[in-house]
């Protein structure tokens, strides 16, 4: 079964119809999506700027990560669940939007960036916890993360222009 036929099927489920036809669901879910996204992005910028050695320089990177990570993960979960709900209300139109595909690819890339960081330079964090400047690989990871998230937010905004909320 192709993705298109899967989304056509999803489009006709009663859950999707309910999401689409309810007056309040879309604004509420969209608001939750945007608010959790802004907070996630704020925390991500603080973490990345610590990796770049711009803020909280005196603080251990492992400590900053330990403090920010639980909320970053929580924000990501809220963002993902609300995003999936928005998608499920109108799956075929989203799937046909280029910006939506771009956004999904960027989210996958941002996730890969985290995995690569954790598997390489991030796994040896104790050895450069307070180093100034921070290692180049950590900086590269932070810059990639910032670029991906800025592009993800921009692509998300662009979707709203192509597919205005009902």
């Amino acid at each position: 079964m192709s993705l298109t036929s899967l989304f056509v099927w999803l489009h006709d489920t009663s859950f999707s119809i309910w999401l689409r036809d309810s007056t309040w669901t879309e604004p509420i879910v969209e608001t939750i999506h945007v608010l959790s996204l802004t907070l996630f992005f704020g925390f991500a910028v603080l973490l990345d700027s610590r990796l770049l050695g711009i803020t909280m320089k005196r603080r251990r990177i492992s400590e900053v990560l330990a403090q920010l990570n639980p909320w970053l993960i929580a924000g990501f979960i809220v963002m993902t669940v609300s995003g999936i709900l928005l998608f499920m209300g109108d799956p075929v139109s989203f799937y046909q939007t280029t910006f939506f595909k771009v956004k999904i690819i960027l989210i996958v890339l941002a996730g890969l960036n985290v995995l690569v960081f954790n598997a390489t330079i991030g796994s040896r964090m104790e050895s450069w916890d307070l180093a100034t400047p921070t290692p180049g690989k950590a900086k590269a990871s932070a810059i990639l993360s910032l670029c991906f998230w800025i592009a993800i937010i921009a692509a998300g905004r662009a979707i709203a222009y192509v597919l205005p909320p009902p």
Partner: protein
Amino acid sequence: MISHFLMWFCNWADFSFFGAGVRNSAWLFPSIEIFHLLALGILGGTVLLVNARLLGLRFTGEPVAELAKDVQPWMYISLGVVLVSGFFLFSSESLKMYDNPAFRIKMASLVLAILFSFTLHRRVSRLDESHLAGAWPKWAAVISLVLWTSVGLAGRAIGYVPQLH
């Protein structure tokens, strides 16, 4: 008197060259909006972090004043970007915004949020740890979160509510 001044201001912004410029361009509004949203995210993150510290939820091993000082540049820069980009967005449709109840609530909450942030909240977040016992610092955090959240919620509502006139 105040409403006269606000009406005049909205008129001026609406007819200004930048108001018309943003309005007549297909891509200026969306691009400025992205900056608005990105800066808003940074502002929201820093506000949440300092308040989470005041509430004893994050960075409990660090003095409040130090954490607040660390994130302060981000807060000021992002607030500046939010205000400037927001003004340009507003100027492209200021006469419409004048009659939008959600926009009015957003501006009222914004003024309160900024006033509170730069007065009482700032004093609390600069206090020495020994003065932070008791409930008041936590209330300052709650008030700050409520004010900034209402700015965000009213902002989201602008596109959904009907005009007044």
